[in-house]
């Protein structure tokens, strides 16, 4: 009936991006990504590839002429003595994660839901304060507390309990690592608990759930993404931690991080073997992160 409305020429022209605009669309993200991209390539991607290459040369030591490629370094990991180290590292990491959860959850819960609102930021800062000092310093502080003439035993003996030799034992590693990584756990759990909908707890109470049932059936499932993220962060950092096991754990607490150190800077000097264990550590951590991305918080709107 009527002619279709025609778009005025100048509007039609304006709708088509000019060459300059198209270039701009390309350059903009590049300029934003370039600095970090260069950084990542230079200091992460290339070194990782180098390590991967070295790990494939069995028994490479500094100064050696690289021999033929092979899987010898990786097979060496399966010797019982190294498997025990791996197992111990996993135990330390899992134990630290569990302890951080058990200690951190009540703290985060209290700050997020029960502490007076105007104190919350201050309380969080107080909790993060230890992170402002060097991890080395904190480990030394624990040495003075845990050694046989240290603060702990002074207190224990004062109340009539015999002194304990905790320093240079796995227990000291758990204590030190839990102390080191607790702030991260509290921070992440706090941000998750802060978003917890109190009305859901009321609804559960209304339906007959007692405080324990409310906790396990509403609070925990609702904050599961935070629990997973916090747990993963603590797990990864404690799996690769070198300072605490070295300074507090003594000879009996050999971990994968210390073993790797020994291959590069310690007496054994087996770069090839050190690289293969580094690759294993990278693989384990990547796998954990991939699992979190895949299953951690698939459908965030379901948790609203």
């Amino acid at each position, binding site marked *: 009936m009527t002619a279709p409305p025609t778009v005025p020429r100048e509007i039609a022209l304006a709708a088509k991006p000019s060459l300059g605009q198209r270039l701009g669309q390309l350059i903009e993200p590049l300029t934003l990504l370039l600095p970090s991209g260069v950084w990542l390539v230079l200091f992460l991607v290339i070194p990782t590839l180098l390590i991967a290459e070295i790990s494939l040369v069995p028994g490479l030591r500094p100064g050696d002429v690289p021999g033929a490629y092979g899987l010898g370094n990786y097979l060496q990991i399966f010797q019982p003595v190294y498997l025990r180290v791996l197992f111990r590292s996993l135990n330390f990491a899992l134990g630290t994660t569990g302890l951080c959860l058990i200690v951190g959850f009540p703290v985060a819960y209290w700050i997020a839901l029960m502490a007076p609102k105007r104190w919350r930021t201050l309380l969080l800062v107080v909790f993060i304060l230890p992170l402002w000092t060097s991890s080395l310093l904190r480990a030394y502080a624990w040495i003075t507390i845990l050694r046989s003439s240290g603060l702990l035993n002074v207190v224990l003996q004062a109340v009539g309990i015999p002194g304990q030799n905790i320093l240079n034992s796995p227990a000291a590693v758990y204590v030190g690592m839990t102390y080191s990584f607790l702030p991260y756990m509290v921070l992440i759990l706090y941000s998750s608990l802060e978003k917890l909908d109190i*009305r859901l707890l*009321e609804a559960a*109470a209304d*339906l*007959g759930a007692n405080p324990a049932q409310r906790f396990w059936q*509403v609070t925990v*499932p609702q904050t599961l993404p935070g629990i997973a993220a916090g747990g993963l962060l603590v797990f990864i950092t404690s799996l690769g931690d070198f300072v605490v096991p070295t300074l507090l754990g003594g000879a009996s607490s050999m971990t994968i991080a210390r073993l790797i150190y020994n291959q590069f800077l310690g007496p054994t000097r087996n770069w090839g073997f050190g690289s293969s264990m580094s690759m294993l550590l990278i693989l384990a951590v990547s796998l954990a992160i991939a699992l979190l991305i895949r299953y951690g918080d698939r459908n965030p709107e*379901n*948790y*609203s």
Partner: protein
Amino acid sequence: MSQTTSTQRSAPPAAATLDVELRQVFKIFGPDTAVKGVDLKIRQGEFFSILGPSGCGKTTTLRLIAGFETPTTGEVLLQGRNVSHMPAYRRPVNTVFQSYALFGHMSVWDNIAFGLRIKRVGKSEVRTQVAEALRLVQMESFARRVPGQLSGGQQQRVALARALVNRPAVMLLDEPLGALDLKLRKEMQVELSNLHRKLGITFIMVTHDQEEALSLSDRIAVMRDGEIEQVGTPSQIYDFPKTPFVADFIGETNLVRGKVDQAARDGLKVTTDTGLQVWVQPPKIEIPLTAGMAAVVSVRPEKIRLSTQASPAQPGQNCFAGRLQHVMYLGTHLQCRVVLNTGEHLTVLQPNRHQRLPELETPVYASWAATDCLALAAKSPASELTDAS
């Protein structure tokens, strides 16, 4: 001092059939007193609404019954038992929340089954009861969805099912339809009413929507500033409000301030602040007003007639001159705004009969029968704040 009508029940229910009772309940939050001495008696099986503007304490009152708050002083009784300090999870009541508060990490089915599983009801029993509740709210085909995938109206139905599957003694509804659009709200009102009739349990609903309260409730309590202004059936509340606030809040009304001139058994004369003399003869109602008291005359817009000629002055009729200022076409009705010569503004609702209205700004006469208006004490005496007895 009380107002009673012979035509409507307003006597308090006998104690044996009471489901919920509040006795002189106060709730103080820091510097604010949210609930100030509320007395309520709610019968078994009743659909009872607590109506009031936002901030009047109606939701706090409901939360006191649910157990989310404990009274600062006073008592809350459920089926004759003092539950003032019983935690919410032990009370035989269930709530439908305004925000629905469905568990996002569970399916619709698990949401509804939550209360039964907490009570350790057997598996097969849970299955039949949840299925029955889903059928009741017509949500059978949504059992496997999670709340995030449902519309507002569907979430509302799930919230209803989750509460009623527990067969509570009392269902509490906190602005249950507040988040729905108008059409859906009308539909859900009908369903709520049907559910109430089918289940026969006590419903207590909090709402700020007076139409919703009037259309659904057996009785209504109107709250203001933490106090109950009036309790009564919808028609008592609408036709015989006890205070100017109730008259104004429920439906629309014209309020004119004045002073009682003469008070007789069959009616009274109020002289307004501007000098008009208004006859008031409320039908079958005792008037707690005596000569000299400050009063507010309330006349509903639909009770006023407009004409171009003055009706002859006669006792029992009020007729005042003014001019027509504004007419609004509402479809079923015409809403007219009239300014009396003495300065009062009146809203007049005329049914749409295709009548010819006087021209704007021309003189008109607004008239109403003395039996069609009410005189209310300007300051409500304290004793009127409690349930009529």
